[in-house]
């Protein structure tokens, strides 16, 4: 089961960590970094059903926000 409740004791710090990893990178470098991170984290989870649920959720939210023009 994909867990979507808050799992970090300090969510702001976790978000910061990801954002800061991208500081100073070109879009191309950022995309490459994200690709490596996705693979590492997906393997850490190690559960294809969870991965699948995460992809579904991410795609659904993405298409919602695009159709609403936000």
């Amino acid at each position, binding site marked *: 089961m994909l867990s979507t409740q808050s799992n970090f004791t300090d969510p702001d710090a976790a978000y910061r960590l990801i954002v800061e990893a991208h500081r100073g990178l070109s879009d191309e470098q950022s*995309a490459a970094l994200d690709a490596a991170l996705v693979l590492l984290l997906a393997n850490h989870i190690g559960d294809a059903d969870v991965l699948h649920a995460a992809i579904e959720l991410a795609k659904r939210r993405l298409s919602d926000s695009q159709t609403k023009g936000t």
Partner: protein
Amino acid sequence: MRHPVVIVGAGPVGLSLAIDLAQRGQRVVLLDDADRIGDGSRAICFSKRSLELWDRLGVAGRMIDKGVVWKVGKIFSGPELLYQFDLLPEDGHKMPAFINLQQYYAESYLVDRVLQLPDIDLRWRNKVVALAQRNDHAELTIDTPDGNYTLRADYVVACDGARSGLRGMVGADFSGETFEDQFLIADVKMTAAFPTERWFWFDPPFHGGQSALLHKQPDDVWRIDLQLGPDADAALERLPENVRPRIARMLGHDDFEFEWISVYKFQCRRMQRFLHERVIFAGDAAHQVSPFGARGANSGLEDAENLAWKLAMILRGDAPAGLLASYEIERGLAADDNIRASTRSTNFIAPHSRQERRLRQAVLALAKEADFAKRMVNGGRLSVPSVYASPLSTVDADAWRTGPEPGAHMLDAPLQTASGEPVYLTEAFSAAGRGFVLLESANGAAVNVPDNVAHLRIGADAPLRDDAGLFAKRYDAAPGSAYLLRPDGYVAARFRHPAPQAIEAAMARASGRA
């Protein structure tokens, strides 16, 4: 005159099927539109399972003597070795993991074997140009240099390759995916000291941004594949003067000759149904894959071994015609497996989009220190036979820790005869006859088996001994346990304590009578 079986196409699949049928006592007419076997750069890697089939057909010895035996593959990223794999890490198998052998050698040894079998009527320069389905047979119109004639057959097996004309004649589709990338395939003659390993590169220094493959064949010929990308001009790339500098960059010298050069675009596709009334499709005619993984000819040969015994039993009246449905189920699932595996490899080698390429590059970069990423690196997953989810299999009623499950193919093991002569299990299986075989771990008195089942008994005081204990290990065998093998060497059922009625019931199921 009505023929029981006419096979169209004398490629590796049609030839092997004809031999298997003839060895089962079946008369066969084998037609091919060419005047001899094919040439050019086609299959080179033949799998252990294919060799086991060919051993039963009496041709594996020549293939192995001529072929280059190998089992190790190496994957490079840029100039660095990422990892290596060993396809047969254990001993005690008669056949090697793989051999490399030019397809034309394989075909010519098969033709030699065909010519030894009076039950096969091989007719070159016989091109099937029309086909009509009748109630209980099919009628073929055949074009020859001396004019046309017709042949009637109970069953026609279409082994006429990826461009199959028979597919169109039965009105069947052939759909799937065509990959945009083009690949240069060069067979190059040179003396070189590279080891007999499969070497695959992502982004090598000599061919930036693309993939490359180097693999040894007999006669000092080397197979070289170079990815060219989607935009290459095939007509220009094929010219020897353009190929030469590419290969020289790879090898670091110019001291080689070309045997053959071609540029391919690869496809993965299959027919929805392999059975069309009296016409049965097998090999590339039924399904086509990209060559990464060597799944083309090898899977076609598995089609042939799957079909031969079923057709022979039906034609002898020992099984209902409905047994053929299991051919379509089993080999259809295998085709899906092979298409899935070779599509994944091709997509990894030739990513579709920029982001797909970034993900692929991330895998390659992480693979240097992360095991999980190493296992995602996909330069071709080499052909292994599928395990059939099949209506012919009897579901296990007992507990097994290991061993081939129902629907899986038998595993080889080194045995001894009672007088101490070494014999492999696969050899004993072939020698036992051409039908079903009960493989029993002897425990006192032999179990009763039906008349039409051959019996192999293995144990200290039995006709076959397992001195090394590898049979017991590979089959999770305990005294008294038994495997019922189909005539193609796949497991139909297994029992801890075989009872005659249970064997009988499993036989009926595996013969399409249940």
